[in-house]
């Protein structure tokens, strides 16, 4: 009886294994296909000049220097805003907030924020940063809008990271006469930092590829030079792709540039992610 | 739960130790009783039997002592378990001594078997009976956890002491009268003294039993009549 049962179980196990492998293979195939498609169409335009020259001749020639730098600037502004605010919000939620109506509402609000379509963030940015605060359509407005988009991701990840810090660390710190802030600042945040970083990396990925929130708030169709101050509009890679794909006058000529730009955007996101992962790995190595 | 099983093992082991000790007590009591019987009946063969049986008794005592050590090493007993096993270990030694004293009596019996007694033996058999009662009482107290019984065992030592002194005085008078019986007289005094020492070991047993039961170190003298200055200078 055990034999029969066993062969049946082994059979099922085999089926499940095969199914999972198939699923995995199809996902990998899909990704490889997309990447291959992009590389086939965009590889020809990639060159050093492509990265260091601004677009010329109604974007049919030249490079993507201005949108590339613009995207990096946007990410920097968005993170400079969202990272500290997000982490501190999470610290508040985990360490200070007593479980009550206010906390629960706050938590719910943050969660819902993550589900809001990005175009809504764009409209909010337009009415709040651009008009109400008077920042105009600028790097600052667009960056802050993207920051708002990143906020729920960072808060969520940080909350999870802070909650995951073993209670033992807190106990040990308090038992030596540490205050709450000392404990958070010197023990809990450092211990949670690698995981918080993971959240931030994900947020960067999300922010870098967004178009809708920046269209109204600071992304320019074209600027001749990179932004010199926070209040100038910037070009950005995702918007640039949109422009190339929809607003070009000579679609045939811009198409390779469009795919090349996508490849660069992909590389940028991957690069930021990879740098973050490396840094995190080094941090962990130092601690364990 | 595992704990309960360990507890059952401990209880079983202690039960085994108790049974072996009880056995030893029987053998020790038997040795004294038989030796006295051999003395009274002038039965050399019986006396030799007692002497020969002593090796077995010694072995058993040693065995109990080893078992106690092994028990301590394995279970690291505390509280009553610890007191019990410690008591058993000590009591085995006392009982082994009582057995040895029985052998001494048996040896005297062999020596005295060829001649008529210098006097009829009354007090010495009486001492033997009381000694037996004391051993029984001490062991009963141990098995039943009865502190009163143990105290009674201690108290009986007074009677033994009285009888020993009586034998001593009586023989002294007779020997002064008839010096030729000095050899036999001294032998009888020695027998009485031996029995008295055996009784002292029994009070040790009773003290141990009291410690097991109450957890307090007891001295047998607490349960005996107050000591009075002795007037016989013979001791």
């Amino acid at each position, binding site marked *: 009886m055990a034999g029969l049962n066993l062969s049946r179980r082994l059979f099922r196990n085999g089926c499940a294994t095969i199914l999972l492998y198939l699923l995995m293979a199809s996902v990998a195939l899909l990704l490889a296909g997309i990447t291959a498609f992009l590389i086939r169409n965009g590889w020809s335009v990639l060159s050093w000049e492509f990265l260091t020259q601004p677009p010329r001749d109604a974007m049919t020639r030249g490079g993507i220097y201005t949108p590339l730098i613009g995207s990096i600037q946007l990410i920097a502004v968005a993170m400079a805003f969202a990272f500290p605010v997000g982490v501190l919000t999470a610290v508040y939620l985990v360490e200070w907030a007593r479980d009550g109506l206010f906390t629960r509402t706050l938590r719910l609000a943050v969660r819902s924020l993550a589900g809001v379509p990005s175009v809504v963030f764009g409209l909010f940015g337009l009415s709040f940063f651009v008009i109400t605060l008077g920042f105009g359509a600028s790097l600052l407005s667009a960056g802050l809008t993207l920051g708002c988009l990143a906020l729920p991701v960072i808060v969520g990840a940080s909350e999870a990271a802070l909650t995951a810090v*073993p209670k*033992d*660390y807190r*106990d*040990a*710190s*308090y*038992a*030596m*006469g*540490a*205050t709450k802030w*000392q404990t958070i600042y*010197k*023990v809990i945040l*450092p*211990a949670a930092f690698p995981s918080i970083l993971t959240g931030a990396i994900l947020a960067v990925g999300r922010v870098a590829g967004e178009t809708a929130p920046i269209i109204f708030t600071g992304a320019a169709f074209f600027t001749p030079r990179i932004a010199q101050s926070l209040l100038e509009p910037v070009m950005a890679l995702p918007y640039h792709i949109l422009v190339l794909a929809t607003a070009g006058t000579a679609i045939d000529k811009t198409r390779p540039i469009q795919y090349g730009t996508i490849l660069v955007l992909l590389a940028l996101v991957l690069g930021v992610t990879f740098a973050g992962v490396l840094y995190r790995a080094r941090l962990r190595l*130092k*601690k*364990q | 739960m595992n*704990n309960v099983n*360990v*507890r059952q093992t*401990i209880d079983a082991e202690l039960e085994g130790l108790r049974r072996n000790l009880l056995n030893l007590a029987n053998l020790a009591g038997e040795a004294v009783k038989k030796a006295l019987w051999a003395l009274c009946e002038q039965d050399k063969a019986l006396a030799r039997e007692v002497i020969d049986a002593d090796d077995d008794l010694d072995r058993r005592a040693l065995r109990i002592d080893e078992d106690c050590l092994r028990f301590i090493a394995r279970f*690291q*007993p*505390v*509280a*009553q*378990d*610890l*007191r019990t096993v410690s008591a058993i270990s000590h009591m085995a030694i006392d009982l082994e001594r009582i057995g040895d004293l029985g052998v001494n009596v048996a040896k005297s019996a062999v020596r005295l078997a060829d001649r008529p007694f210098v006097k009829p033996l009354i007090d010495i058999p009486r001492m033997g009976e009381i000694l037996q009662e004391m051993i029984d009482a001490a062991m009963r107290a141990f098995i039943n956890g009865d502190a009163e019984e143990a105290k009674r065992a201690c108290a009986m030592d007074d009677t033994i002491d009285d009888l020993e002194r009586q034998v001593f005085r009586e023989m002294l008078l007779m020997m002064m009268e008839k010096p030729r019986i000095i050899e036999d007289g001294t032998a009888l005094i020695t027998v009485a003294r031996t029995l008295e020492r055996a009784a002292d070991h029994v009070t040790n047993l009773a003290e141990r039993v009291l410690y097991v039961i*109450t*957890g*307090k170190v007891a001295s047998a003298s607490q349960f005996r009549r107050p000591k009075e200055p002795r007037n016989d200078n013979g001791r």
Partner: protein
Amino acid sequence: MGKTIKFQTSAMNLWYDRFQALKAIDITISERAVTAFIGPSGCGKSSFLRCLNRMNDFVPGARVEGEVFLDGRNIYDSDQDVITLRRRVGMVFQRPNPFPASIWDNVAYGPRLHGVRNRRELDEIVEKSLRGAAIWDEVKDKLRTPALALSGGQQQRLCIARAIAVEPEVLLMDEPTSALDPMATARIEELVRTLKERFTVAIVTHNMQQAARISDETAFFLDGEIIESGPTHLIFTSPRDGRTEDYITGRFG
């Protein structure tokens, strides 16, 4: 031998909301001695330990009635500063819990909290504390390596070093060896014996043999009450209460 009383409780009750975890605790803890708390799981011994440095303050719904005197002062008085209290009454936990940082940083953590900044001074404190916890020789060449790379037993001794680095007067230990192997346990026990020369030690342990080996006084907890307390040698040879007897001889618990 004149024993000074370090801690004394008087009619102390501990409530977790409606549940009374400790009932009318009256006990004294002698200075520079090891006091062990034993009892079955959930008997309140760990809770009691945590009342002594007010770690229970963190438990929502926890409430202490009665008085707990440290050197004659009630630590539950409203003017008692908890930070100072915990500096004086340190704690070592069940699981070794070094911070994910270097050995040096772990030990220096406490002194830094309390304002020691001078590097040389910190070095001295670190060495002294590690020596005090009998782990200096094992780690002196790798003070900068991560504490989590140490073995469990070493981690626990490091935690002891960390706790004594702030020069507390009392060291509370909550089952400090329950996560360790017998060899590591033996080293900690040895350490506890030496610690009592400088500190008052109160230790919760599940291991009765351990209590018997290392403590001078023992208190037996059952269902939130102290059933019996007194010199360890008496508790383990001649307990007065039948429940103590039953517990230490393994009849329950």
